[in-house]
């Protein structure tokens, strides 16, 4: 059922994914999401969710503390900017390593328990990180205000290479290419594609098979003499590094790190993204991340004026009713829409949006093969 080597189908999926990501600005324009900041968020949170899915989707360990690694990555990247260089490459390398280091520490302790106890432990650790960033670590994190760049930062490497930013606040640039706007998006997009490829390899490797085994029956593995903890810890560290990278990229596109990135709501968000898209599927988490960020940015921006325009075609009294009803679900009420959507998905499509996709494609292929063998199943694992 689960192949342990890359198949032609996987390569096709990877090619389509790459093309779709790179063409993002054009594809997403019609739904109002084709602007750099949101595209960057799609790519970055896509990486975050991909990493989370390696842990949750494959091993079934539900971590409620992944935002801590995201935050650590951001702080590390901003400090790299401040101390070393405005070049994003060292920043994301250090962010990834720090994410890995923190996840090794937290994972080592948390993975001694499983199920709900594991979730609570990770939640507790993340909340500790958040509170420390907020209070005792204020000299490092600048508390609620958030860590920001200053003109007077040392930037040792930049100085060594004779790079001078003059009187303006520097922004991150890759050898002269500024990491804002579309170049910033393409930088994140390349990272996303690399991460997607790594995830694909992990999914199709014996290691990935072992992680699935941990999910389906850990006791049986233990009884047969397999020590599962190193596998789970490795998965935890890999996903922590993905989160660290995502945090670093957040700082690359916008050099600011705030403690709220580590809050438990942010950890919950990545769980939502993964489940919404389809846990354990390759594409699901990326799609889930996109859906949630789209809601957060586009639906929260609808106001009465826009709604009035939308329902302009209705007679006056109907327009008023339509506007007042729908305004509950947009603007500040976007959480409500997200909640309703999430409930619908979990009830009717427990496998997430990807289950919906595979159901539709099954339906189509069955029709095409004239009610034959039921068509080929979708290449994604269903769990």
């Amino acid at each position, binding site marked *: 059922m689960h192949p342990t080597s*890359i198949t032609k189908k996987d*390569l096709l999926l*990877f*090619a389509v994914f*790459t*093309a779709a990501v*790179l*063409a993002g*600005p*054009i594809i997403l324009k019609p739904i*109002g999401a084709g*602007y*750099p*900041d*949101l595209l960057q*968020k799609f790519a970055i949170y896509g990486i975050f969710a991909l990493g989370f899915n390696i842990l949750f989707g494959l091993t079934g360990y539900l971590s409620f503390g992944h935002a801590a690694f995201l935050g650590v990555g951001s702080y590390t990247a901003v400090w790299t900017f401040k101390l070393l260089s405005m070049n994003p490459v060292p920043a994301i390398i250090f962010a990834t390593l720090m994410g890995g280091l923190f996840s090794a520490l937290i994972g080592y302790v948390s993975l001694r328990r499983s199920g709900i106890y594991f979730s609570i432990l990770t939640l507790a650790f993340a909340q500790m990180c958040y*509170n420390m960033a*907020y*209070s005792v670590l*204020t000299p490092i994190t600048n*508390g*609620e*205000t*958030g860590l*920001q760049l200053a*003109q007077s930062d040392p930037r040792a490497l930049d100085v060594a290479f004779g790079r001078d930013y003059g*009187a*303006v*606040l520097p*922004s991150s640039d890759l050898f002269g290419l500024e990491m*804002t*706007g*579309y170049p910033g998006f*393409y930088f994140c997009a390349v990272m996303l594609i690399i991460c997607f490829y790594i995830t694909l390899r992990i999914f199709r490797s014996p290691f990935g098979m072992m992680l699935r085994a941990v999910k389906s029956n850990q006791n049986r593995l233990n009884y047969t003499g397999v020590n599962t903890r190193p596998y789970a810890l490795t998965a935890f560290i890999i996903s922590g590094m993905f989160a660290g990278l995502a945090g670093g990229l957040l700082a690359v596109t*916008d050099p*600011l790190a*705030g403690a*709220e*990135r580590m809050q438990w709501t942010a950890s919950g968000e990545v769980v939502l993204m993964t489940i919404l898209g389809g846990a354990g599927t390759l594409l699901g988490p990326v799609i889930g991340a996109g859906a949630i960020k789209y809601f*957060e*940015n586009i639906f*929260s*921006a609808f*106001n009465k*004026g826009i709604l009035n325009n939308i329902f302009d075609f209705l007679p006056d009294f109907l327009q008023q009713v339509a506007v007042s009803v729908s305004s509950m679900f947009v*603007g*500040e009420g976007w959480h409500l829409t997200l909640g309703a959507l999430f409930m619908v998905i979990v009830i009717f499509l427990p496998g997430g949006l990807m289950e919906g996709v595979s159901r539709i494609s099954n339906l189509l292929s069955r029709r095409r093969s004239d009610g034959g063998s039921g068509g080929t199943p979708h290449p994604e694992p269903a769990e």
Partner: protein
Amino acid sequence: MSEFKITRRGLLKSSAAAGVALAAPTIFSSKAFAAGYLNEPTGKTVTFGFNVPQTGAYADEGADELRAYQLAVEHINGEGDGGMLNTFSSKALKGNGVNGKKVVYVTGDTQTKSDAARASAKRMIEKDGAIMITGGSSSGVAIAVQGLCQDAGVIFMAGLTHSNDTTGKDKRANGFRHFFNTEMTGAALAPVLKKNFGSDRVAYHLTADYTWGWSQEGSIKKYTEELGWKTAAAVRTPLGAGDFSQYITPVLNSGADVLVLNHYGRDMVNSLTQAVQFGLRDKQVNGKDFAIVVPLYSRLMAQGAGENVKGIFGSTNWHWSLQDEGSQAFVKSFGKKYGFPPSQAAHTTYCQAILYADACQRAGTFRPSGVGKALEGFKFDGLGNGPTEYRAEDHQCFKDVLVVKGKENPTSKFDVLEVVEVTPRAQVEYPASLLGGELGPYNDGK
């Protein structure tokens, strides 16, 4: 296996090529290269971006700010009764929009978080083509968004932000603030505190743990210690803590006889209510009645705290009971539309929108450097604070500061504050160099 490797390489090559081919047209067609400055309005309308907290500890202020912005847009476009445009000393705006363009607006939710605020500001700049961003009800957010606007190349008209840093350490050329700051609060409040509480008091600070709290704690300490007060302790509390009882209990045993609450919004409502419930105000310490001071007051907060604000001193940027022409016109126009008087948050954001529109009209352009030059050193009157000046050195407005007190016998649920003293501008003015920071050059966007 070798076949597979070749396929992969070919695949990577072709996908890279496809990526470049797809990217090229978007890069060249991007708006930034077409116009003289970022988001230059080319059609019949110009877009303002209103970035206010719609959720979180400052949501009440944010809702009021948004109402004020909508009113300001109506007045600029010549709808409604014109409000303070009629009393404003500059007559450049004719009620037909700005530079012949009708003003439209987009809104965003800052969630009182720097991250979310920057994301929504970016959306308004990149997607909706906003020429100016304004709003915010937290200094942390204001500083974060101001930095973003500077980098992007649009004007930022700060909303309710009271930290010194907004136009001090973290000031930016593209950022402008109408609201006052903690330095002015300290200078205005200290003489009143001396008159009422004497000069040998011991203060205990509870401070919201972010840039505004730190700034206010510093300013109040500075000015009260000049009076001869001592500071027993200054304890930082997280923003949006909700329950402050654990912070209030130690106050009783600290030997302090004044509690300074450097809190705002719902935090202030909660901490003040809990302090009063703990019976602090009925205590006698060092032979003196225990007192509570809330340096930054607003009507919304006073209303939220209800009975507990009676007799408590603080400062405010503006209050709806002011009797000057501008304030009256604004209260009347706001009241007619929404059915209740505006808060200081609503007032400052209304002023900012009007001041920006007026500066564009006078400059004849929306180019940030042009608009900025029109605002620098601009002297005006009729916007409710008396004669006011936008100081060129730090883009901070200087005007009289109101010291207020919770009213003992309120006549309505809005009538909760009384003005104790109007501290003249000269008394609260300070040299721009005091707070440090660099404006840097204007950024018009690429």
